[in-house]
């Protein structure tokens, strides 16, 4: 099959699934709805693998013109290269697993067909985002995934207790994303102003090696792009929506808010690497924002009690880590972590979904415990995920994180030190989560305990697949010290197949430092694991109740009060402003002002009508008076006429 046709099929299949489910989903049986939705994504994945295997250079597929003006042409066209196909593989691969999982997870939901409709639409938008060959198509997908994210977060808007909260969370996510979108929009405008095109390749070729471009314009463009990335990828200051987005069904969290959509910001940065390379200052900003995010989010995760919230903050933290890598210009490293993170975070989310499903929608870890026996398969896979993210040696997370640490150590030891802190905290909260959930005594009450059950095959199968990937994902990009030949496969793959990346070279540490680094990381991870085991499993420590929290714990549990601060600094003033402008300026000042003027004019009638006194003598007097005034005026005028 021709490549372009394959590509179009990949994009069209989810759309087809969306159309079928959207139009007829209500009348079809649930298995067929879910089956179709899963199948289209899976077929897309298979097609993507064929593209992957036959990948050779960059290829552009043009579909049609969106806008064709004299000075501006924008096409709906797509780009096949290493980066886009890799992202496609992640999206469709993990996407199909999550679809499969959802068939089980959502089986009792009345909005079943709607859910799959949205999911397919999301996959479609996401594919547009990563496959587009220009910023416009990317923006298309960018906004599209935002919309789907909104729809899916507020999916359970009818819920009796949480319906309103769910919809508010969706709204928050949408608005926060929109702030980022404005950044992207402005960046696009500036790119258009600078290059008169939005095609990646054209721009890339235009800027390549052109050091003269380095400076103001590039800074603004990349800065705006980065703002967009912070919106989508939940970085400071726009990260608060992601934890709230956990209001959505868990598969959504896994797919959108862990594996795919939130990495769009990283994709954008990698895709625009040639621009960022010209803006070192922006890269510094990225580095420090990423660093701050990863630290802050990890800190917040320490004392969260909602199983999904912990994972959410963990996601924010990991994304921050990726941005640190980007800040160092280590694009492939960041993308490597995107990949492994997609594996284990999807696994963790699905695992938590399985737990929540089994616990009948209970998400509070204080009500869990001892689930290891009740849900063995889930337990095992969750453990693997936890170990992967915590950086237990030779699991996928170990390698990808290590790469980032290595970059940090190479560039800036201080950053490295902070990252060590963040990584340690990651291990702490993840094991805390794991042990509190799966070990110890069940705390949810007996009636619930009797109902807890292991999930069905459609849910556990994806878990197992993802667990395998989480374990072996690291093999994609082994460090050079183990297998000389197989090492850095991913680096090569990306940097040779993606425009601009071949220009960027990652730092490689020498042998001893690498070994030392890995050893240190392993010690931390394993040490934390043992500590957590002792503390939570053996000693039986439990999550404290809110009232018992001490100073730093409270800060963590209350998320550093960021939401409150935003509320006071941004939301409240905006609402007050709106209220003020609406009531005072608009109604009082403008509208009533118009009325007042009108009334003022019309009320002079009360005055003018008094002139009509009713007395004949006064009429005659005024007539004469007017006449005299006229005469006087004209005689005066005559005297000055010449």
């Amino acid at each position: 099959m021709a490549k372009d046709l394959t590509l179009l099929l990949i994009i069209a299949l989810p759309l087809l699934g969306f159309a079928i489910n959207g139009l007829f989903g209500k009348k079809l049986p649930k298995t067929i709805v879910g089956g179709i939705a899963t199948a289209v994504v899976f077929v897309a994945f298979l097609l993507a693998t064929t593209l992957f295997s036959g990948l050779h250079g960059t290829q552009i597929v043009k579909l049609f013109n969106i806008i064709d003006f004299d000075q501006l042409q924008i096409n709906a066209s797509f780009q096949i290269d290493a980066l886009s196909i890799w992202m496609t593989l992640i999206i469709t691969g993990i996407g199909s697993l999550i679809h499969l999982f959802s068939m089980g997870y959502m089986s009792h939901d009345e909005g079943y067909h709607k859910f799959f409709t949205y999911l397919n639409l999301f996959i479609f938008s996401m594919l547009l985002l990563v496959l587009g060959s220009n910023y416009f198509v990317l923006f298309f997908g960018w906004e599209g995934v935002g919309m789907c994210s909104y729809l899916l977060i507020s999916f359970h808007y009818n819920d009796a207790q949480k319906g309103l909260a769910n919809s508010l969370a969706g709204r928050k996510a949408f608005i926060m994303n929109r702030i980022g979108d404005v950044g992207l929009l402005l960046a696009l405008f500036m790119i258009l102003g600078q290059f008169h095109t939005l095609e990646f390749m054209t721009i890339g070729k235009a800027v390549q090696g052109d050091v003269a471009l380095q400076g103001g314009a590039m800074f603004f463009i990349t800065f705006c792009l980065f703002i967009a990335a912070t919106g989508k990828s939940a970085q400071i200051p726009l990260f608060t929506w992601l934890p709230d987005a956990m209001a959505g069904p868990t598969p959504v969290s896994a797919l959108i808010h862990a594996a795919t959509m939130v990495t769009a910001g990283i994709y954008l940065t990698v895709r625009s690497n040639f621009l960022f390379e010209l803006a070192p200052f922006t890269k510094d900003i990225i580095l420090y924002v990423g660093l701050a995010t990863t630290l802050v989010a990890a800190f917040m995760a320490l004392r969260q009690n909602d199983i999904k919230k912990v994972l959410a903050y963990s996601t924010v933290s990991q994304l921050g880590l990726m941005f640190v890598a980007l800040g160092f210009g280590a694009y492939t490293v960041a993308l490597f972590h995107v990949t492994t993170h997609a594996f284990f975070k999807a696994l963790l989310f699905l695992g938590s979904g399985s737990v929540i499903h089994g616990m009948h929608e209970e998400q509070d870890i204080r009500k869990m415990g001892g689930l290891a026996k009740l849900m063995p398969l889930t337990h095992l896979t969750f453990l693997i995920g936890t170990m992967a993210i915590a950086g237990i040696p030779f699991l996928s997370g170990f390698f990808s994180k290590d790469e980032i640490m290595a970059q940090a150590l190479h560039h800036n030891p201080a950053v490295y030190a902070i990252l060590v802190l963040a990584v340690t905290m990651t291990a702490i909260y993840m094991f805390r989560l794991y042990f509190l959930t799966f070990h110890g005594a069940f705390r949810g009450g007996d009636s619930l305990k009797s109902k807890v059950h292991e999930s069905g095959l459609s849910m556990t199968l994806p878990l197992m697949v993802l667990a395998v990937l989480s374990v072996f994902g690291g093999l994609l990009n082994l460090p050079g010290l183990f297998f000389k030949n197989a090492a850095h496969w991913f680096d090569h793959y990306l940097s040779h197949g993606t425009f601009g990346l071949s220009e960027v070279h990652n730092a490689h540490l020498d042998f001893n430092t690498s070994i030392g680094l890995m050893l240190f990381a392993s010690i931390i991870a394993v040490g934390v694991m043992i500590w957590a085991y002792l503390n939570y499993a053996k000693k039986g420590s439990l999550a404290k109740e809110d009232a018992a929290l001490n100073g730093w714990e409270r800060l963590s549990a209350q998320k550093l009060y960021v939401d409150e601060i935003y509320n006071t600094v941004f939301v409240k003033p905006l609402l007050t402003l709106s209220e003020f402008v609406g009531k005072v300026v608009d109604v009082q000042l403008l509208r009533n002002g118009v009325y007042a003027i009108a009334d003022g004019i019309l009320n002079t009638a009360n005055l003018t009508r008094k002139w009509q006194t009713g007395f004949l003598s006064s009429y005659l007097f005024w007539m004469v008076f007017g006449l005299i005034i006229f005469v006087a005026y004209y005689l005066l005028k005559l005297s000055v006429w010449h």
Partner: protein
Amino acid sequence: MQAASSIGTSLDFYLFVSFALFTIGAIGAMTRKNMIVLLMCIELMLNAVNLMLVTFSTYYGNGDAQIFVFFTMVVAAAEATVGLSIIIMAYRNLKSIDIDMYNQLKN
């Protein structure tokens, strides 16, 4: 427009008289309350005009204005007729010929 008659220098005098009469009439019309007096004042104004017309007629030496004077007199007569009958009708209604009593219609 040459002065074609013997009226010559005394033109100003005639004009002054005419002005004076007109002003007296106008002030009278404005200040007096009795409708009959009002009517008379207006007649006075008309006659002031007549005087002026005749003056100018003499001054210019053509007869147009004198003919006009006749018209004015006729009109004045007609006005007086109508005016008096209106006053009578008004008197029937309000039992008064004080002009200030006629003050229902206002504002």
